[in-house]
């Protein structure tokens, strides 16, 4: 009985020490890791539509094959609207590259108004399995909000969704590059 107690306490103490030491590693909050987006980074096509990247690569997530479907055309409601003041720049959408990572694939779309990001959405959010789907359904809305609030890439990864966060950031980066931001 005493031996069992010692084993239990010892194991628990060892685990706490191990995890504590690990979690207090160099970076307390994981910043999303970004690699070079690739030589053929997306260029805004006519109408403000981002062209898909062809060979993006990053150390943590591999860029997938170029998405074949055409990105949604810019939703520019202000273009012809008379109600919109003429000083307001038009809204333009940019679609980032489709990033494939271990647990799925993800593609980010940003809508810009001038140099401001007004919306970030994820038109493509595939998950490899049920757990990844559950994690993404929880993590992606947070990522969208955080990136919008940060107006760019300067946001933290979502705990427990490191891979998704990295892939999200990579796709976002390519979209922002396309937007010239």
């Amino acid at each position, binding site marked *: 009985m005493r*031996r*069992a107690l010692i*084993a*239990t306490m010892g*194991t628990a103490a060892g*685990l706490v020490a*191990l*995890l504590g030491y*690990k*979690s*207090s*590693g*160099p*970076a*307390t*909050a*994981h910043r999303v890791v970004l690699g070079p987006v690739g030589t053929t980074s997306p260029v805004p096509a006519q109408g403000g539509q981002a062209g898909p990247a062809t060979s993006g690569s990053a150390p943590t997530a591999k860029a997938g094959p170029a998405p074949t479907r055409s990105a949604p055309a810019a939703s520019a409601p202000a273009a012809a609207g008379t109600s919109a003041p003429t000083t307001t720049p038009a809204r333009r959408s940019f679609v980032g590259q489709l990033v494939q990572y*271990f647990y799925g694939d993800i593609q980010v779309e940003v809508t810009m108004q001038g140099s401001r990001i007004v919306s970030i959405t994820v038109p493509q959010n595939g998950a490899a*399995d*049920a*757990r990844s789907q*559950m*994690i993404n359904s*929880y993590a992606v809305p947070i990522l969208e909000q955080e990136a919008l609030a940060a107006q760019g890439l300067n946001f933290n*990864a979502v*705990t*427990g969704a*490191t891979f998704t966060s990295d892939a999200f950031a990579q796709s976002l980066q390519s979209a922002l590059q396309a937007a010239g931001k």
Partner: protein
Amino acid sequence: MACLVALGAAAVVYMWWHDTAPADVQGAGAWLTAAGRVTGLVGTYLVVVEVLLMARVPWLDRLIGMDRLAVWHRRNGEYAISLLVAHALLIIWGYAVTAHQGVVGEAKTVVLSYPDMLAATVGLGLLVLVGVLSARALRRRVAYHTWYFVHLYVYIALALSFAHQFATGVDFATHPLNRLLWGLMYAVVAALLIGYRVAAPLAKMARHRFVVAATVPEGPGVVSVYVTGRDLGRLRAEAGQFFMWRFLTPDGWWQAHPFSLSAAPNGNWLRLTAKALGDHSASLAHVRPGTKVILEGPYGAFTRHRRRKRKVLMVGAGIGITPLRSLMEALPARPGDLTLIYRASGASQVALRAELDQLAARRQAQVHYLLGPRWQHPEYLSPGHLARLCPDIAKRDVFVCGPAGFTQAVSESLRRLKVPARQVHTESFEL
């Protein structure tokens, strides 16, 4: 060996450490999940060690001895299964916290919809069943063959739980090198197990053709079995060693039991002497001459190679006399070098007495019989009494064999008599 096992565990933890970023352990859910991962990795590693301990690898036997291996096997098994239960609970709890779900709902999701998880869950259930049935409290009430067959479930459990590690384990899914090393660990242990527990005994049977020559009653409840075969000298068995004996009778062929050689191997026959302790030992009396036998072994380091001094004291109890009887016959000694102390609860419980007296006369050895129930003679194994029976005890090698409680009591007395530990050699026969 304990160091080697610990080193392996450290390597497993290092693998997790290397694959995990500090960001992966932020927040309660991530902590629980990470703890679940570590316990899962180490627990699985220890279950594989558990199989290795029972693979009857000759060098492990020489290094540690089967009796101590069995004790390790029991303790390590309890610990490994506890870790794996913790693994399952921590992972589910951690996932539930991360996904903001209830624990029960999350458990259902994990078990039913993640790849290979249903099989792994069944595997864990089997392991827990084996653990519970082997727990000391229950072990005595479970019939040997139930316990034995349930132990085979461990192999099923290992097979069932293997796939989920590679399908869902972060350390394996994304790391081919880890996958390779982990698979290699399983493969090596499986090869040792099959080689030493299946192939080697079958090869030995084909070569030596062991067969029962005779069974001889030695007294109330005690029986000797003589086994002959071809080329027995090439077995290289030694006095003090034991074999796992598998008698190929219609109802007993599936079980192998450890029995010491009760006579020094002589090239013509091997002999075991057993007391009716369990169902199996009792049925030995009915084994017919001509029955084929599969022998695993020889095992055990309780031999003349342990000897460091010229003079030897042997202390035995009950049926634990058998390896000492062999040693008494085979140890090189001059007159007066050998002394035997034999503890038994009554004169009728002394096995092989005629042989022991004969040997004592031939080799001019001293024999002391300590007879009577324990409550009447609590002083029998005391340091003072042992020193009176054998005054130069500290200058002798002491071979001790008997039930665990007995070997413990004698070892304690020897320690008090300042017999150096390297001169004390014990074997306890509770495998």
